[in-house]
């Protein structure tokens, strides 16, 4: 709304372009186009993914052209910076005028210069002014009143602060963009993977960099629970202890319930299970029954010589059924077959081949992964969100309306009222109100 060229003589070509709505629309179109690329093309994948998917030439082009990380590429950062400049220029350009308008409330002189919208005549004798005042305050709100020689003027202005509304919205947008920038430059964003029972003193930023914490954190316990066995997950819960200068703070971190310590916020992000020793399996083949120990990701020969198994991975609470191990069974020839063995529910799941497996013990430990973050830009972004509200309210729900009713006594003793008013942007509502107002003012006039 700020982006129009209001002034009559443009200061310079650059300033004129920067404050133009054309630039805004042009930039919005480009940004929308870039954003569409970002949603259609998978982002932040390794380069070979693109080559295998789009071919050598196109994959390379997409990678080198920055389209695979489009939101941090010049294709996006360029237009968005220009948009910020565009918005800023419009605010600088128009805000002083808007403030000036707000600081000049409607005067009698200005009210008298409003265009005329209708006339009402009251008969001589009874002073209609009490009726007029009551009608106006009922239909419009509290009016100011001025007595001039020979006439009384009732006038009021609605939506006086409306002109600053659009600027509040655009300042809010600038705050949000500034917040994003501040977060990018002064924020910290990393990952912390920590085994149950372990103590960590550093976290991972990017793919290689380790950043030390100025405190220590221990994962006391991780739990995952399900609504029912085989159902959907109910809760991921990490019990953490923060340690600094001999002080210990115990907290619980869940999804949607991050915890903050020492200026960093920890978000429950993911988890996993690791085997802490070889898996003990009972293997049955006909009458043969034997216990074996199978280390993770290593082939173990099965008694009876009919094949090998490799424990692929373990899960501490497989779909809510308790500990489980994923086995790959390879008979002497043919493809290996992969299936889960549940320790507490051995009857569940299909087991191929001649063997029956039962898990006797699955030694495991959980690890939990946290998003670790400090973002000083968030406060700016939230300030922007909050500023949006009064901005949108003023800009769209407080239309400017100016009204004046000039009441004068005619030489014949009658009373004559002239209704004046204007509303630059809400003609339909204004016309409806005008009609109603004239009708109400005429009410009670004996015809």
């Amino acid at each position, binding site marked *: *709304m700020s*982006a*129009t060229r209001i002034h009559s003589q443009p200061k310079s070509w650059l300033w004129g372009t920067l404050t133009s*709505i054309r630039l*805004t*629309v042009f930039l*919005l179109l480009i*940004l*929308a186009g870039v*954003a*569409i690329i*970002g*949603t*259609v093309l998978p*982002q932040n994948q390794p380069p070979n993914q693109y080559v295998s998917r789009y071919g050598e030439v196109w994959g390379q082009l997409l990678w080198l052209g920055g389209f695979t990380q489009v*939101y941090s590429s010049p294709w996006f950062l360029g237009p968005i910076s220009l948009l910020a400049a565009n918005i800023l220029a419009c605010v600088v350009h128009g805000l002083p005028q808007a403030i000036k308008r707000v600081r000049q409330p409607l005067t009698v002189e200005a009210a008298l210069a409003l265009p005329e919208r209708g006339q009402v005549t009251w008969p001589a004798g009874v002073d209609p002014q009490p009726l007029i005042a009551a009608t106006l305050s009922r239909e419009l709100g509290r009016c100011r009143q001025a007595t001039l020689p020979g006439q009384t003027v009732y006038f009021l202005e609605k939506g006086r602060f409306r002109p600053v509304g659009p600027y509040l919205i655009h300042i809010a947008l600038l705050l949000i963009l500034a917040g*994003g920038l501040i977060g990018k430059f002064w924020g910290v*964003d990393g990952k912390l993977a920590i085994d149950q029972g372990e103590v960590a003193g550093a976290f991972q930023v990017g793919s290689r960099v380790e950043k030390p914490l100025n405190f220590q954190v221990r994962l006391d316990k991780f739990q995952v629970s399900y*609504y029912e066995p085989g*159902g*959907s*997950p*109910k*809760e*991921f819960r990490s019990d953490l202890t923060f340690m600094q200068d001999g002080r210990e703070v115990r907290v619980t971190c*869940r*999804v*949607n*319930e*991050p915890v903050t310590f020492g200026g960093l*916020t920890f*978000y429950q*992000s993911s988890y996993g299970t690791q085997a802490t020793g070889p898996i003990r399996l009972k293997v049955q083949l006909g009458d043969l029954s034997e216990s074996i120990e199978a280390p993770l990701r290593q082939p173990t020969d099965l008694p009876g010589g009919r094949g090998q198994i490799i424990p692929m991975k373990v899960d501490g609470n497989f779909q809510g059924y308790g500990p489980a191990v994923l086995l790959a069974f390879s008979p002497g020839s043919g493809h290996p077959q992969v299936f889960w063995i549940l320790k507490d529910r051995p009857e569940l799941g299909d087991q191929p081949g001649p063997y029956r497996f039962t898990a006797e013990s699955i030694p495991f430990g959980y690890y939990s992964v946290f*998003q670790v*973050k400090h973002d000083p830009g*968030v406060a700016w*972004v*939230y300030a922007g*969100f909050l500023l*949006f509200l009064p901005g*949108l309210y003023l800009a*769209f729900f407080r239309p400017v309306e100016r009204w004046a009713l000039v009441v004068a006594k005619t030489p014949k003793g009658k009373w004559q009222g002239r209704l004046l008013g204007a509303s630059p*942007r809400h003609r*339909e509502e204004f016309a409806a109100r005008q009609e109603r107002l004239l009708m109400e003012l005429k009410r009670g006039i004996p015809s």
Partner: protein
Amino acid sequence: MISQILGGVMLIYLLAAILFLMAELWSSARLKGLGRVTLWLGLGLHTGALLGRWWASYHLALGHSPAAAWADKLQLIIIQVPLSNFYESLIFFAWCLPALGLLSFRRYLQGYLGALVALLASLLLAYASFGVDSHIKPLMPALKSNWLLIHVVTAFLGYAAFTLAFGTAILYLLQERRPRPSLPPLAQLDSLIYRTTVLGFLMLTLGIATGAVWAETAWGRYWSWDPKETWSLITWFIYAALLHARLLKGWHGRRIAWLAVLGFMAVLFTYFGVSFLLSGLHSYLT
């Protein structure tokens, strides 16, 4: 039980649409009144069904995590609002259309526009009943948040307002091509496009902002360029362009109507396209 009621509501909306159409064709004030009463009746039943599902979903959750203190119960009620999957979002979207129409734009909700709103609500309910899994499922951890209620309500009120703007824009374009005395005058339609768009824009802004605040507490990122986020931003851009064109460039009529149509296409893609064609953080909707 609740799905049967919703099936009934679907038929009632359909009936309201037919009554509105008949009222228009025979210019009968009585049929118009009847259409409106029917729509109100449907909305009342629909509201009851929504509350019923809310109640059922709260009791299901109470079984999983018993709450004794009233504060815990209140918390559970808030997060168990039936807006947590695709089916429930369709039901709520269908509710928003007649609700917005009857509460905020009562004066205009008659004739072809009334029929359009009732028909769309009926179609959404039909799709929800026949094409989508309607089971109440317990909440996944990411959705357990007080922000769920306000985020989804504002987003769908926004979608509904944009749908009204779209319907009005279609009527405008028809009326302009071949004027009919039975349709509202062009100036009125034009003003209605603007007012519904403003409401939708406010709601979409709130929806995006509450979503960002929620994302910050859930994932530690207020903005992740998730496809749903990105498409809602594209939608926001289009409606922002519409408002700028109208308020600054004085665009009216046909061009604004086409922009409202374009914006609605983006809304449709944000709602359906992203859920079905692109994967991302909002994929639990399907």
